[in-house]
C-alpha cells in the first residue's frame, strides 16, 4: 500500500515544512516515507512542490494518477494541479491568495475564491480551510502549516494518528513554538472534521 500526498504553494510559505511535518508524523506511526522537494529558480514567490510518499516505496515521485491528496497552501497553486492529478485526489485548499505578478502586472485581480474552488471541485473533493486566519487567531501566522496538517489528519487519508502528529510537532518545533503548533493542529483537525461532517464528505 502507498499513500501519496502532494503539497504545493508559493516559495516562502513553508511548503517544505508541511512536507517534513507530515513525513515525521508518518515515521512516528512506523511507516516508511520518501519525500522529494522541488524549489525552482526563485527563493520566494515561485511555485514550489513537495511529494510525500508513505508506504513500501522507493521512488521519490508518484504516478500522477496515484496522488491521494493535494494540500494547496495557496488556491491558485492548487488549481495548477487540479487537471494534472487523478480524480481520486482530495484537495485541501488554504484560502490564502497570493496574486502572481503575471496578473497584477496587467492590472488584473485575483479570480474570485468561489470560482477557483468550483473549478477544483469539478473533478475533486475539496476541503477549503482558512488556515492563515486560524493561525492568526492562534497568534502566529507561521503555524498555518500545522493547521493544514490537522486538516489532513481529520481527512484520514493517512494511517497516522493525532498522537503521532503531536509527537512529530514536538520533534520539529522548539518548546516555545510547540504549544502554538499543537493548538493550530487541533484547530485544523476540528475545523476539517466539522466541515466534512456538515457536507457529508466521506473519504475512504
Amino acid at each position, binding site marked *: 500500500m502507498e499513500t501519496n500526498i502532494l503539497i504545493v504553494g508559493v516559495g516562502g510559505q513553508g511548503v517544505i515544512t508541511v512536507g517534513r511535518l507530515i513525513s515525521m508524523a508518518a515515521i512516528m506511526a512506523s511507516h516508511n516515507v520518501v519525500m522529494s522537494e522541488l524549489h525552482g529558480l526563485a*527563493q520566494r514567490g515561485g511555485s514550489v512542490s513537495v511529494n510525500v510518499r508513505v508506504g513500501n516505496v522507493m521512488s521519490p515521485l508518484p*504516478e500522477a494518477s496515484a496522488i491521494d491528496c493535494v494540500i494547496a497552501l495557496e488556491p491558485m497553486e492548487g488549481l495548477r494541479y487540479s487537471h494534472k492529478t487523478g480524480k481520486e485526489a482530495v484537495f485541501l485548499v488554504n484560502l490564502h491568495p497570493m496574486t502572481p505578478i503575471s496578473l497584477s502586472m496587467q492590472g488584473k485581480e*485575483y479570480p474570485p475564491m468561489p470560482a477557483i474552488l468550483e473549478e477544483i471541485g469539478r473533478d475533486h473533493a475539496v476541503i477549503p480551510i482558512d488556515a492563515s486566519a486560524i493561525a492568526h487567531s492562534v497568534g502566529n501566522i507561521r503555524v498555518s502549516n500545522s493547521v493544514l496538517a490537522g486538516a489532513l489528519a481529520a481527512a484520514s487519508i493517512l494511517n497516522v494518528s493525532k498522537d503521532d502528529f503531536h509527537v512529530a510537532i514536538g520533534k520539529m518545533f522548539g518548546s516555545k513554538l510547540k504549544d502554538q503548533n499543537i493548538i493550530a493542529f487541533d484547530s485544523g483537525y476540528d475545523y476539517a472534521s466539522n466541515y466534512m461532517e456538515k457536507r457529508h464528505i466521506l473519504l475512504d
Partner: protein
Amino acid sequence: MSYYDEILEAKDGQVLFLLGNEAIARGAIESGISTAATYPGTPSSEVGDLLYAVYRKAGIHFEYSVNEKVALEVAFASASLGLRSMVFMKHVGMNVAADAMLSIAYTGTRGGLVIMTADDPSMHSSQNEQDNRHYADLGHLPMIEPTTPQEAKDFLQRAFDISERYRVPVIFRTTTMISHERGLVEVSHVGKPREIVPFESGKAEFNSLPQYAMRNKKLLEEKISKIKDVESDRFVSIERGKEDEWGAIASGVGYAYLHDVISKHGMDISMMKIGMTNPLPERSIIKFISEHPRIIIVEELDSYLEEKIRALCQLKGIDVEIYGKMNSYFPYDYEFNMDVVRSGVMKAMQKDDTHMLSIREESPLLAARTPVLCPGCPHRASFFTVKKALKLAGMSDAKISSDIGCYSLGVYEPFDMGDYMISMGSSIGVASGLQNALSERSVSFIGDSTFFHAGIPGLINAKLNNAQTTLIILDNRITAMTGQQPNPGSRDPQDLNAAGNISIENIARGIGIDFVKTVDPYNIGEMLHAVTESFKVDGPAVIISSRECAILRDAKEKKAGRHVVYAVNVEKCTGCEKCVEDFACPAISMSGGKATIDPDQCDECGVCAERYVCPFQAIEVV
C-alpha cells in the same frame, strides 16, 4: 540543538530523515574527511550548507572556494598529503573544475578524494541538462551513483575507501531527485581523520609534465582495470522475478522508478541495479544478460549504459534484445518519473498502459507564476532604474548581457533584461564581443559571487579591448540563489563588514577601469544618475549596485525587532497601475481599482514609496 547539529551528533545506529545531500554530508563526516571545498550550486548546495554549519565542531577544514576549479585544487592538495578530502558541485560546475580534474585523474591521490557532481535533469535550476557520466569516460575515473539517501551515505564511504585503496579520485554522481529526496537513513559512527603521510619529494608524483603524465596514464589504466576486476561487481544488486525472459538494468534514481513500477504493476521481472557505473561490472552484466534474452535499460539523460552494454554484447557475441533509448522506448530528454518508466517498460513488453493519467484541460482561471525576485530584492530596484536610464538615453534597444544568479530572473517582464545568459561570468565576455559587431553600447549584469567566480577575466578582457559596455555588478553580499552562502566579498553574511572581505571596487580599479561607482539601488535617484553618466564613458564602466539580499536583511530586521508598515493611501492612489506594471513587486497587486500591499509578503524595503515607482507617492509608511 540546531537541525544540522543533530545530524552531526547522531549516534551509530540512529535513524534520521535526511535529504540525499545531508546524507552525503553525514557520509563525509563518517568517512573521516579532513577537507571539504565547494562552490555552491543547486542541486548540490545542501551538502555545503550542512558542512558549513558544523565544520568547526566536526574538526574539518571547510571552505566556499571562489569557484569549482579552485575548490577541487584545494581538496586535491589535502588529499595528496594522505587526508581524505571532498569537493562537490552542480553538474555545470564540473566543466569549470574539469581542467584540474582531468590532470588529477592522471596524478592520482594518496588520501581518498571524492568529486561529487549533482546533475540536473529537466534543468530545474540550470542552463542545461548535461550528463556528467561522460566525465568518467573522459577522465578514466571510477564513478559511483546512489539510488536512495541511505545509499548516498553508504556509497560515499565506499567511494572514499576505493579512492584511497587505488589512489585515484572517484566521481560521485547524483541527480536532483537523489540530492533533494528525503528518506530514512541509519547512520554509523563518525570517522577518524587520517594522518598526514610524509611527502617524498623528488618523484614528481603530482606533476603533470608530459614525461610524468606518460607514466601516469599507464598507471591510471592499471588502476581502472583492477577496480573493474575487484570492486565494480560489489556495487551490483539484483532483485529476482519469476519471469525468465525479461530483465531490466538501471542505476541511480532510474532504478527507484523501475522498482516501484515493477512491484506495483505485477510485472514479475528481474531487476539489476548498478551502483558503480564506471568501470561497469561487466561480469555481472554478462551473466544477467545471458539469463534474460530481453533486457530493458532505464537511465535518465544520455544512453550511457545502453551504449556500453550494447558494445559489450557485441564484443562477447551475446544474442540479446535490448530495449532502451536508442530504439526509442525511453526519451533522451528531461527527468524521468514513474509514468515515463512505466510507459517505456510496458511498450517494450507490449502491454497496454492503462495507468497514464489523461491530462484534462487546464482551467481558464489559471495564471502563470513565473519565478520572481523576492519582495524587497535590491535587484528589482536596479533593473527598474537601468531600464529607466536606457529609456532616458534613447538606448532602449541596447543589448543586455546577463549572468547566472537570482538576477537572471530580470529577463522576465516587466524588465526584459537578459538578451544573453550563457554561463558563469559570461556577461562581460559577451559584452566585450558585441562591440565588434555593433556600434552601440551594451549593458551587462553580474552578481558579486559570479563576478569573483569567473567574471574578473572577462572584465580584464573588456578593459584590454576597450569594450563599450556598462557593467552593473549586483552586489547583494551573498550567493543568494543557491540559498545564501558567503562569498569572497562577504565572508560572513551576518557581519557585512567582517575583516578580510575582498573589495569589488578595488578589483575594478586595479584592472584600470576609470569609471567605477558604488551606489545603493534603494536610492533610485542616485543610481539613475550614475547609470546615465556611465553611458557617456568611452570604454568599460563599472557600477556596483550594493545592497544586501532581502532575505538576509529581512532576517536581521526581524531579529532586531524593527518593523515598518507600508500601505497604499487610497486617497492618493489613482489606480494608474504604474507600480504593478513597471516595478512588479509581488507584494503589490490591484484590488478594487487601487493598488494594495500584502503585509505578509511586504519586505519593508520602501522602494515603492519613491516617486519614481509611484508618481503620486501614494505608498506611505503607516
